[in-house]
């Protein structure tokens, strides 16, 4: 019998696990996909928003600003790439200018510090690539960029290191009452707990409905992106937004912590799993982005992707005990600024659980650090020390991102090892560069197969079924 089961290990589930793992609790995290951070967390703008956007009085407004402050601390403790770049919202006409004033007023109410308005020329002095059409801009110095999947992974890993159980490829198929607790059925068996946190992202309404009467609906909305080569990575040095519209925060142009340039997203209603790109969506991204930064060279694109926002019909985060199901807590409708607010969402839920009787006794032995080797960031002295101890740190596998065999092996021995080529990519960056795994893909596959003790054919690109190899050559004829 566990104290708490968390359903879903995206950034919200991971933040909850990380938060709860500092207490003496029996904790289980169930993730439907084969890796953590596999849904919305892996496909978004990778921005920690300053917090001027949400309507004052909403949960979003209350949790965003403090969440971003905590995120900075967590990233430092857990070795997650993070950079406080600041952001600009651009105004192109009178309507936009009045929008900037609304955002400024909201931001001040929400407790965002350092906000101020810049003239078009002042904005261009900061960001020379901005369009000449920009009349005014709102500067928010506290906005930051982050590696979202490493952020979630780091929190989940730390939770596991502190005793949380994580089960991957473990979708929940049924939830039943069992005394005043729950029985949670999965293909990997039945799990029992006193409390449940539903952090199932785009599927949160379905998971809730397994036991409770529907009182919210997830309205998934797809966003399409371009990820451009590092040669475009310094085109801007801050996150460049346009004025938000009811559907979202508009198309942004932003550097990433990996040194690339990210451009997007669109916002269209979609299925919960629909992460396909469309010609129209990509066209729209290009058309809107060049309004802000005309010089973006889309021919430097290395990858398109799409993510699905887990927006709900309520328009705000849903952080509450399900009215009809005591002990079942929803963390649902976590669309933007969900990544920004993840740590405070976790705090909020922890407080709700405590109110309902969960005893929170802090562990003395709580481990709150994490480090990983990033070969390309080290100086030669540190590199040579590593190579002397393990020569595999001297073998560069991913030449675009300078990732070594030693780093790949290390991630396979971490608390949450990857089981796919993309899992390795998310952890160490092999295949994230301009050749997109053209060279290193086969070698990563070989290393993964060798280390996992399986044939190369058994190593998938992502989820089971996304196989890369079909067998030996000429097998069709034997």
């Amino acid at each position, binding site marked *: 019998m566990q104290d708490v089961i968390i359903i879903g290990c995206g950034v919200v589930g991971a933040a909850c696990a990380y938060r709860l793992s500092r207490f003496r609790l029996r904790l289980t995290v169930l993730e439907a996909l084969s890796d953590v951070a596999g849904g919305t967390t892996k496909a978004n703008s990778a921005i920690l928003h300053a917090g001027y956007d949400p309507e004052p009085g909403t949960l979003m407004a209350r949790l965003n600003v403090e969440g971003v402050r905590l995120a900075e601390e967590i990233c430092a403790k857990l070795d997650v790439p993070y950079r406080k770049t600041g952001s600009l919202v651009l105004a192109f006409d009178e309507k936009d200018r009045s929008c900037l004033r609304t955002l400024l007023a909201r931001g001040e109410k929400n407790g965002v510090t350092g906000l101020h308005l810049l003239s078009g020329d002042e904005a261009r002095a900061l960001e020379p690539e901005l369009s000449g059409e920009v009349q005014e801009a709102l500067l928010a110095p506290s906005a930051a960029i982050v590696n979202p999947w490493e952020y979630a992974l780091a929190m989940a890993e730390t939770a596991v290191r502190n005793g949380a159980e994580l089960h991957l490829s473990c979708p929940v198929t049924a939830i039943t009452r069992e005394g005043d607790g729950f029985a949670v059925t999965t293909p990997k068996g039945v799990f029992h707990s006193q409390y449940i946190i539903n952090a199932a992202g785009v599927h949160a309404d379905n998971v809730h409905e397994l036991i409770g009467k529907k009182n919210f609906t997830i309205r998934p909305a797809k966003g399409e992106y*371009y*990820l451009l080569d590092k040669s475009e990575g310094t085109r801007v040095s801050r996150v460049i937004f346009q004025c938000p519209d009811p559907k979202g925060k508009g198309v942004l142009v932003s550097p990433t912590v990996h040194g690339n340039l990210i451009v997007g997203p669109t916002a269209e209603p979609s299925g919960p799993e629909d*992460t*396909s*790109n*469309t*010609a129209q*969506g*990509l066209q729209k991204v290009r058309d809107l982005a060049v309004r802000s930064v005309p010089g973006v060279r*889309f*021919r430097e*694109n*290395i*990858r*398109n*992707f799409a993510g699905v926002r887990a927006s709900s019909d309520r328009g705000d985060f849903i952080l509450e005990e399900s009215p009809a199901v005591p002990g079942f807590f929803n963390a649902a409708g976590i669309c933007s600024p969900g990544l920004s607010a993840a740590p405070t969402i976790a705090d909020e839920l922890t407080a709700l659980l405590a109110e309902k009787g969960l005893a929170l006794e802090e562990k003395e032995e709580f481990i709150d650090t994490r480090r990983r080797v990033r070969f390309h960031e080290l100086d*030669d002295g540190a*590199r*040579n020390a590593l*190579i*002397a101890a393990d*020569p*595999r*740190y*001297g*073998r*560069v596998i991913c*030449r*675009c991102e*300078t990732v070594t065999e030693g780093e790949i092996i290390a991630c396979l021995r971490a608390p949450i090892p990857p089981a796919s080529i993309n899992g390795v990519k998310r952890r160490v960056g092999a295949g994230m560069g*301009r*050749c*997109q*795994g*053209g*060279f290193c*893909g*086969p070698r990563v596959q*070989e290393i993964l197969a060798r280390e996992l003790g399986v044939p*190369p*054919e058994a190593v*998938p*690109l*992502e*989820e*089971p*079924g*996304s*196989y*890369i*190899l*079909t*067998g*030996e*050559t*000429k*097998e*069709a*004829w034997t």
Partner: protein
Amino acid sequence: MTEHQLVVIGGGPAGLSAALSAWEAGITDILLLERDKYLGGILNQCVHNGFGLHRFKEELTGPEYAGRYVELLESTAVRVKTDAMVLSVSPDRTVRYVSPADGCRTVHAGAVVLAMGCRERTRGAISVPGTRCSGILTAGAAQRFINIEGKMVGRRAVILGSGDIGLIMARRMTLEGAKVLACVELMPYSSGLNRNIVQCLQDFNIPLLLSHTVTDIIGDRRLEKVVVSAVDEHRRPIPGTEQTFECDTLLLSVGLLPENELTRALGAEMDPRTNGAAVYENMETSIPGVFACGNVLQVHDLVDFVSEESARAGAAAADYIQNGETASRRTLTVENGNAVSYTVPQRIRMEAVDQGVQVFFRVNRVFEKSAVTVTAGEKQIARFKREHMAPGEMERIFLPEKLLALAEGETITVSAEEAEA
């Protein structure tokens, strides 16, 4: 820091040839750095034949061609480090590399030859819509899986792009037991060699769909189908022309890009048309003593020409080491005229021209009976007849010193034009 006369970066056909020719020119202290476990580069996975007709006057497979050079190199005292990845090159010709055996090491060289080769353009570079399922690989990655690892990448395939690697892989997939449904080419002509269209597609009845492209990729986990549409003269898909191919594999052969990260970080002047360094008549970059050759300089169609170009770079590096910098009181810039998309070299130092200069270039459309002209201002200094020219086939002309001397200004222009029958 160790000192070497010459450091060659890359042990593919370009690096091998450059190192050999420098050795033959009397350079005895040569270090060759190769990032893979074996010398030979991409030739090792090109198990098909068709290499070496110019260089060795016989038809060899890729591994045989590489083997000939490796054998020649083994008869020299050129030092080879494999598994050695170069991390940086500085303008003072300091080279930093890392390998499991040596760790991170810094060496200094009297001259450096850049021979890192090229990489394939990916799905991202062409922004094909659709899902991101498995089963979509560059043709070269598939070639490595099949020919080096002996692993099959799929059962029913569509090839996007009719460059030589795509054509070769259409045949390879077929010979290894897969069904290749079509080879789809955006342009109205193939960028591959005609012989490959015959022996890789026609021999196996694989249709070549010119002026078509893949407009959607469908598949949840593994690729299930691709949608192919015809394109108009602006290369835009034409609605209503969609056809669906049920397949589990899409191979991309959509172009090669010289791999010049080291060259850019070094600060060498680049030519945006070749995506390689801008070079002088002897393959020297704008950084004195640093030379570039092979696919890192310009994407070639034939390895024989890579070897030839690289031999010139190696010899020039030897000359630099032995005789110092090349004088350049008068430099001609080679400009692209009508229908010429690039030239290599980009500049010619007149004092350095011995018998003449080999100029490589590509045309940007198909020509039948035609002529290549070289002009200096209003004056035509040379004219070469051609029966056929196409963007997929690199052209070269030799400009004898005598003709170059006729150029009075600071530029010469290479142009292509239709010739009267």
